[in-house]
């Protein structure tokens, strides 16, 4: 009964979504205020019923209702309760329901926090989000219903959640990722609403910015968590594999990063509007494309969902309607959007333009690399593979160029750089960065290393540039520093940029200086890796709630001083009788020691893989800085102040910053 209620609740949600996508638009067309005002209550209703639906699914998980096909396939009575709940998004059907839930949550949020916006505009935005909801609720109901029953013969016990997913990383990684993916639908809806209305001004950009930054921050955390999870859970010690599934999350992140910057310029300079519109459409389209690629089986990936051509076809139709429709709208209506620009070669506008160009090129490159095997196959030219060596070869030079401009961006003036001023700002920090980058490899490894030099110089350069920028803003006329005057969104941007610097340093260090040892070890044997001594003391048998494991006992010491006992495990999960490696990791800010058990070689001797990974935690730390920066920026007062909406007051030819009431 409960699953049917959940199913029914989702159907009611669909009805709300249908009304939401039609009624407010009729209201706008007929200038009927009652209909326009219906958008908010409809979006509340949509959220409410979808929320009930997903809660009922979670409830069915916790009471082990294995008559539900999805639960029978992804849970087990022995599974701890928190994994039963996270199993809601552990498979295709449930994750689609979560996708829909996240979408309605964003819709609700837009409805709640849009008091300062024009009513017609909010009605349009909510209606567009309603349309997206219709598409995805229908998809869930028609092709991927998580409430489907296995009646009358249902199993007494579930087949268990994939052991790899029984992990804290998988409790929080997908929700963050989906919140990010879906969050960009707000920016998309804003863009489409602007095209429908035929007007797009600085106020529009100001409303749109916090939503976009929020989605971007969620996506940053989501991607970082996924990378971290892969690192500690898969036992290969890698943190990025350029697998299609990773690529489809990275593309919207890159495009979204470009979008944030385009929006900033649109708000502050009233230009770059076409960039903003197209990037908003592009970012959201890439999310839809990602869903298609991952869930249709068109592309081979290690992380694959159920492959079902019916689903692929449905998603392709959805993609065609959403993206085709919005691009048609753009082609027909964008001429109404005037985007006056009057900046010179040496200006912040131009630096951002270059940065956006590189980001879009990087996005296109990853798309090309991900789809190229498909292109070749579709043209009947055989089978090829495109993997990490290709992506590294083309992506790294692009990022190096981007990071150079990242240091200039915050320090250059809008419109036209003053002669001498820019070089005055940049001279010192560029010299310091180069010296730091050149000295670092000698300090760390005793010899020069080109990649480390480049990476550390750029990391330092990006960091010093934002630091200098914050100091410049904090500097008072009398020469004292007063940081409270620096606006929060400015500090947020600085922290996010610093986050990039942190990640760059982490990536540089771990790629250049990591050490890997594959070794056969008998109890009592020791091995040295980068100064650390690792002693294998033997194994223990341990029991988990739904698995048994052999646990290696590894004493790690440095210069004779004991540091930690690492316990890598080889687990066997009872239900799926699947073996799994659980690495033993000791993390500090400066390095990880990572041990994974390989195969038993008899007599308690094991093959083992031992890594020394300097600075690896910086990679994810940087991503968290980016997210923190993003969330701080959203808290900025400028986004909460009521903006006077008086179209006549906005003079298109004269980029005025709007008056704040």
């Amino acid at each position, binding site marked *: 009964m409960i699953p049917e209620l959940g199913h029914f609740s989702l159907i009611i949600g669909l009805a709300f979504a249908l009304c939401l996508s039609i009624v407010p638009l009729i209201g706008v067309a007929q200038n009927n205020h009652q209909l326009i005002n219906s958008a908010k209550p409809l979006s509340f209703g949509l959220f409410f019923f979808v929320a009930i639906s997903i809660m009922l699914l979670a409830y069915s998980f916790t009471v082990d209702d294995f008559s539900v096909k999805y639960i029978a396939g992804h849970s087990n009575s022995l599974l701890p309760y928190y994994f039963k709940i996270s199993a809601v998004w552990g498979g295709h059907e449930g994750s689609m329901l979560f996708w829909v839930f996240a979408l309605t949550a964003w819709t609700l949020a837009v409805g709640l926090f849009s008091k300062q916006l024009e009513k017609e505009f909010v009605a349009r935005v909510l209606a567009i989000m309603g349309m997206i909801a219709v598409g995805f609720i229908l998809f869930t109901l028609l092709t991927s219903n998580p409430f489907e029953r296995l009646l009358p013969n249902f199993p007494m016990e579930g087949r268990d959640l994939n052991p790899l997913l029984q992990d804290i990383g998988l409790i929080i990684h997908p929700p963050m990722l989906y919140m990010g993916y879906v969050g960009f639908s707000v920016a998309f809806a804003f863009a489409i609403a602007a095209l429908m209305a035929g007007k797009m001004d600085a106020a529009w950009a100001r409303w749109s910015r916090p939503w976009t930054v929020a989605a971007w921050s969620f996506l940053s955390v989501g991607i970082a968590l996924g990378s971290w999870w892969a690192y500690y859970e898969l036992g290969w010690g890698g943190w990025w594999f350029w697998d299609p599934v990773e690529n489809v999350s990275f593309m919207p992140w890159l495009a979204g990063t470009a979008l944030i910057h385009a929006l900033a310029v649109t708000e502050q300079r009233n230009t770059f509007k076409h960039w903003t519109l197209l990037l908003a459409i592009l970012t959201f*389209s890439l999310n839809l494309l990602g869903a298609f690629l991952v869930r249709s089986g*068109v592309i081979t990936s290690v992380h694959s969902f159920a492959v079902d051509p019916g689903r*692929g076809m449905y998603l392709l139709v959805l*993609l065609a309607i959403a993206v085709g429709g919005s691009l048609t709208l*753009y*082609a027909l209506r964008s*001429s109404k959007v005037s985007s006056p620009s009057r900046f010179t070669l040496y200006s912040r506008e131009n630096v951002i333009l270059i940065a956006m160009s590189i980001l879009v090129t990087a996005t296109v490159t990853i798309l090309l690399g991900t789809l190229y095997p498909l292109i070749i196959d579709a043209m009947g030219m055989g*089978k090829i593979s495109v993997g990490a060596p290709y992506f590294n070869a083309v992506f790294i030079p692009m990022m190096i160029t981007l990071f150079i401009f990242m240091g200039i961006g915050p320090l250059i003036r809008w419109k036209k750089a003053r002669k001498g001023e820019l070089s005055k700002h940049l001279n010192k920090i560029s010299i310091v960065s180069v010296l730091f980058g050149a000295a670092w490899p000698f300090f760390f490894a005793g010899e020069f290393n080109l990649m480390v030099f480049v990476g550390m110089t750029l990391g330092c350069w990006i960091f010093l540039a934002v630091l200098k920028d914050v100091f410049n803003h904090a500097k008072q006329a009398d020469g004292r520093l007063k940081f409270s005057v620096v606006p929060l969104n400015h500090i947020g941007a600085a922290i996010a940029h610093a986050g990039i610097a942190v990640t760059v340093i982490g990536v540089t260090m771990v790629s250049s200086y990591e050490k890997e040892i594959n070794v056969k070890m008998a109890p009592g044997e020791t091995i040295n890796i980068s100064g650390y001594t690792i002693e294998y003391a033997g194994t223990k048998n341990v029991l988990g709630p739904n698995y048994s494991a052999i646990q290696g006992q590894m004493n790690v010491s440095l210069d004779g001083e004991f540091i930690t006992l690492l316990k890598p495990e080889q687990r066997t999960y009872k239900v799926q009788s699947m073996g799994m490696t659980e690495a033993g990791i000791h993390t500090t800010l400066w390095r990880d020691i990572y041990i994974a058990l390989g195969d038993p070689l008899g007599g308690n001797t094991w093959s083992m893989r031992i890594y020394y990974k300097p600075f690896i935690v910086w990679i994810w730390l940087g991503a968290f800085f980016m997210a923190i920066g993003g969330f701080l920026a959203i808290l900025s007062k400028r986004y909460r102040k009521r903006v006077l909406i008086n179209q006549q007051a906005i003079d298109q030819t004269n980029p005025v910053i709007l008056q704040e009431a």
Partner: protein
Amino acid sequence: MKSIIRFIPLILFFLLGILLYRGLFLNPQAMPSAMIGKPLPNFELPILKSLEQRVGRDDLKGSIVLLNVWATWCVQCKYEHPYLLEIARDPRIKLYGLNFTDDRNAALRWLKQYQDPYVFSIFDEQGALGLDIGVFGAPETFVIDHTGIIRKRFAGPINDKIWQKDFLPLIEIIEAEIVQGAS
């Protein structure tokens, strides 16, 4: 001019859509062999039943050869086995086995228990020949023509439907070629 530029994103997306649509009907897992059209590489290996008797490429020449890669660790080989016994009766072809990275005693037991369809099985304990002809796993079946060229590789168990659809037409083509070559 400007209005045409605004249609460019739409056009690009349209092209992408066509590609994705095509992609729905392709199988990314289907993997053609790189060895098609290449001669069977030379080798020198013992046969399974007698380690003293060593065979090479020339022992497989002269007629249409089916080389079936099998092993006792391969589950699907067991499904395929009864059908191989049937194929072996076809006078047009000669069926040879390639016992791939297997335990010899287990393999001999297998042949005793399920009957032996092969003219002989090459015993490739190290997987050397298997690697040389680009074997992914077992079962796999190669068709080698009378001149020693690899014409086809089929991965997975053979059954009647696959035999009719994938193998017979090719065998007929090669037969025609043999006749042509003779005349």
